[in-house]
Every structure is written in C-alpha cells, then in structure tokens.
C-alpha cells in the first residue's frame, strides 16, 4: 500500500511540473469555472425567481446540489479526464503492453498516472459553495452529519470514477469510444439539479440507469443532515457495487486485449 502512495506522489509532482508550463491556462480555467457557476446559479434563479421550487428543495438546498456538481466536475478535469482519456491512445498504439508489464496494478496506473491542476478551481469553488449554502440552510456541523456527508461524497466520487472507467475501458473493443464519455458528461449535467425536480420517468432513469441521483442529490441530502438510513445504505451499496464492476470489467476486457495490429 505504501508503495502505491509513494508512486502516486512521484506521478503527481512530475505531471504538476509539466502542466505549470502553461500558467495562463489557470486563469482561463478559473474564469471559465466561475462563469459556469454564475450561469448555473442564474438558471436556478429562473426557477426560484418565480416563486417555484425544484422538487420541493429550498434555494439553499439546490445550491448545495450545485456545489456538489461543481466539485465533481473539478475532480473530473483534475483526475478522470486527463487519465482515462489516454487509455484509447494506449490501445491504439499498443503502448498498453508496457503498462501491463509494469510491476504495479494496471488499473491504478491508468487511473492515477497524471494530475492536472486545472480542475482545482472547480474543486475549490464547489467546496466553497457547499459550505456557504449549507451554513445558510442552517445545517448543523454535528459529527454524525459530517461523517455521513463525507461517506456519501466518497461514494459519489467512486460511482463517477466507475462510470468513466468502464466507458474508457470499452476502448479495448471500440477504439472510437472516446466520444461516449462526452455523452456521459452531457447526461451528468442533470446532476446540477435535485433529482426530485424531474418528472417520474426521468427520475427513475437518473436513479437506476445512470445513477445521477447518487452523484449529487444523495450527498447533498447528507450534507444538509437529512440523509435517511435506506438512502445512505443504497449509496454505499451502489458505490461498492460499481467499483467492483469496474474492477471486474477491466479484468474481463484485458482478456480480449491482443495488442496493436493483431
């Protein structure tokens, strides 16, 4: 285990040094993330400005959901996107051979090799918005609430990771799969809003087919101290299940990997 942590440290310091060559990007990313957040809040205000609410959520509650979404987007551009987008290239050029030969778990290597600091503004803004909105909503920082919130955030990150990884790993069969992650990204936009704001059919879709509900709504409930036992349990089970599926899927996919041009 310690070996993995020290490897991770070396990986991330190396990629950070490389990325800092392009410092102007940081400013652009900051402006883009902040602008996107302002736009999302504006869209929310379109609903709440007419005295309506989204699925029975208060304005502050909806802001917590948006904060969780912004945080996840930040993690996506910091870790998921830069790492998993390379699987396609590895498969196409055959350099996946070298990855598989390394004396380290291949799924770990592919998922954590690089670290892009450009998602950090999103993580910071998301965390800030969560804190502010939860405080405004009067959520109490009781130890039990904090524990449930932390658990559900971890669960949501694991689910998000598994969704991305399974799609990216499908490139073992379909080299053109990369666009599928764009489809995933565009569907996950629904996570900006509490899932109860959708009509019944879409709500079922976003809970059981693409578990958007567990990505943002359930963590937001936990942060606001409203988490109920069954939902917490369900969140944990979905997270553990999807992680196991991603693990199994990778082993399964590797059986079909025959290196490039073979």
């Amino acid at each position: 285990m310690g070996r993995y942590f020290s490897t991770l440290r070396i990986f991330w310091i190396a990629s950070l040094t490389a990325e800092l060559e392009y410092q102007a990007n940081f400013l652009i990313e900051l402006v883009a993330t902040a602008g996107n957040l302002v736009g999302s809040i504006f869209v929310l205000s379109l609903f709440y400005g007419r005295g309506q609410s989204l699925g029975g959520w208060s304005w502050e509650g909806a802001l917590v959901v948006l904060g969780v979404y912004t945080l996840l987007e930040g993690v996506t551009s910091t870790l998921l996107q830069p790492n998993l987008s390379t699987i396609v290239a590895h498969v196409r050029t055959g350099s996946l051979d070298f990855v598989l030969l390394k004396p380290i778990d291949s799924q770990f290597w592919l998922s954590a090799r690089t670290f892009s600091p450009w998602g950090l503004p999103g993580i910071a803004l998301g965390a800030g918005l969560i804190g502010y909105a939860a405080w405004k909503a009067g959520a109490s920082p009781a130890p039990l609430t904090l524990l449930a919130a932390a658990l559900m955030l971890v669960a949501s990150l694991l689910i998000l990771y598994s969704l991305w990884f399974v799609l990216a790993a499908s490139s073992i069969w379909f080299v053109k799969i990369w666009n599928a992650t764009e489809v995933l990204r565009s569907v996950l936009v629904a996570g900006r809003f509490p899932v109860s704001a959708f009509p019944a059919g879409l709500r079922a879709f976003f809970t059981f087919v693409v578990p958007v509900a567990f990505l943002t709504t359930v963590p937001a409930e936990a942060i606001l101290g409203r988490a109920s036992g069954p939902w917490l349990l369900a969140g944990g089970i979905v997270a553990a299940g999807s992680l196991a599926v991603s693990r199994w899927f990778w082993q399964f996919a590797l059986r079909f990997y025959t290196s490039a041009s073979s």
Partner: protein
Amino acid sequence: MRRPLAQRLAHARRIAAVLLSSQYAYMLEYRAEIVLWALSGVLPFIMLGLWSAVDAGGGLGMSSLQLARYFLAAFVVRQFTIVWVMYTFEEDNLSGRLSPYLLQPLPLVWRYVAAHLSEQATRLPFVVMLVGLFFLLYPAAFWWPSFSSLLLTVLATLSAFALRFLMQFTLTMVCFWSEKASALERLLYLPYLYLSGLVAPLALYPEAVRNVAFWTPFPYMIDVPARILAGEPVPIGPSFAAMAAWAALLLPINLLLWRRGLRHYSAMGA
C-alpha cells in the same frame, strides 16, 4: 487576365461539388462517432424535463406543449449549428498539416465549411430518428410546421450556423500566435450556453436580462430559429437584420486577422 463570370461560376461549382462529396465520404467513415456527438446534445431534453415538472403548477406563460416543442426545436437547431473549426484548425496547425493546405489554390476556410456541412448531412438521418422517437414518447407534442415557416427555419438555421462559424473562426485566428488557443473557446462557449436559449426559452428570462441578451449575437443562434420552427411569433425582419449586422461586424475583423496571421505564420517548429 480574368476569365468570364460564367466560367468562373462553373469552376466554383465543380470545386464545391468535389469538396462536399469527398468530405461527406470522409464523414460517413466516422458516422458512429458523429452519432455519439449528436447524442451528447441532450441538454435541451434535460431542461425540458425540469421546466415541464415546474410547469405542473402553471403560471409560466408557456403551456407544456409549447415548452416541449420549443426544446425539441432547440435540439434540432443546435444539431445543425454545432461548430468545431477551432479544434480542427488547432490540430492542423500543430501537426503541420496547415502548410500543404495553404499551398492549394483554394481559400482554406472553404475546406472547413465543407467539412461542417458534410458532418451535418451525416447527422441528418440520426436527428430525424431522434425526433421520431420524441414524438413516439410524447405524441401530444406532434406538430407539422407550415411550408413557409419550415423554409424560414432552414434560412435562420443556416444564418445562425454562418454567424457562429464566423465568430469561432475569428477567435481561431489566435491559433497563429498561441498553441493553446482552444482554451479561449471555452470562454466564448459560456455566454453562448446561457444566452442562446439552450437552457430555457428567452421568453422565460427576466426582462432586463432578455433585453441585454438580444443585444448580443447569441439568442439568434438557437432561440430565434427554434421559435420559428416551433411556430412561436418572431420578428423575422429585425432578427435577420441583427444577424447580418453581426456578420458585417465580424467579417472585416476575421479577414484582417487572417492576413496578419498568415504573415506571422511560419509553420510549426520553425
């Protein structure tokens, strides 16, 4: 010595036909990718879900049928106004493909225009299928626009595409000076996303925001063509005039930057 007009026109038509058919054949090779790109435009449907759930209480000033038609129309218009010239140009520039293209006796922009139009033609059958699926799930929303409004929609969508292309191509000229210019497109995409009418019909915006929005080029890229298609009342003349005015403003800037950029261009790695 210049050739007579008729001859030049025939020549241009032949070039256009060759460009379009070769690009179309190329795009057909990537039809699976293009289907996925088309699917990633589901945002209007997500927003429709939200708005129609809110509308259950009434008082939006738009019936749920109007909302459904608007967002379906917005989806269709978006499919035929997607522009990605920035990314292709950046890649061509970085990989050095730009130099042979520039040597050809054909203004480079037409190659990209032909690529975009061919990609839209590749999308067309898939978009028709999705629209059919939408009506299958929601038969009450079915409507058939009159011939004149269909014609106007095509015109407005083409103008919207031309305007968006011109706008992005103008920004693309930054590629001549910078390696990571496509990051700027992320910034341009923000006002487009929130002011074009993809997330909500502009009629639902607060009046002050709406008035400001219509002074920008963005509502003409989705909201106006979509409302024409959905059969909502639209001031046709002023809308087309606004699009023409924005194009007239951007075109000289674009040409100027193109000339400056070409003079600055020295092929990647030089």
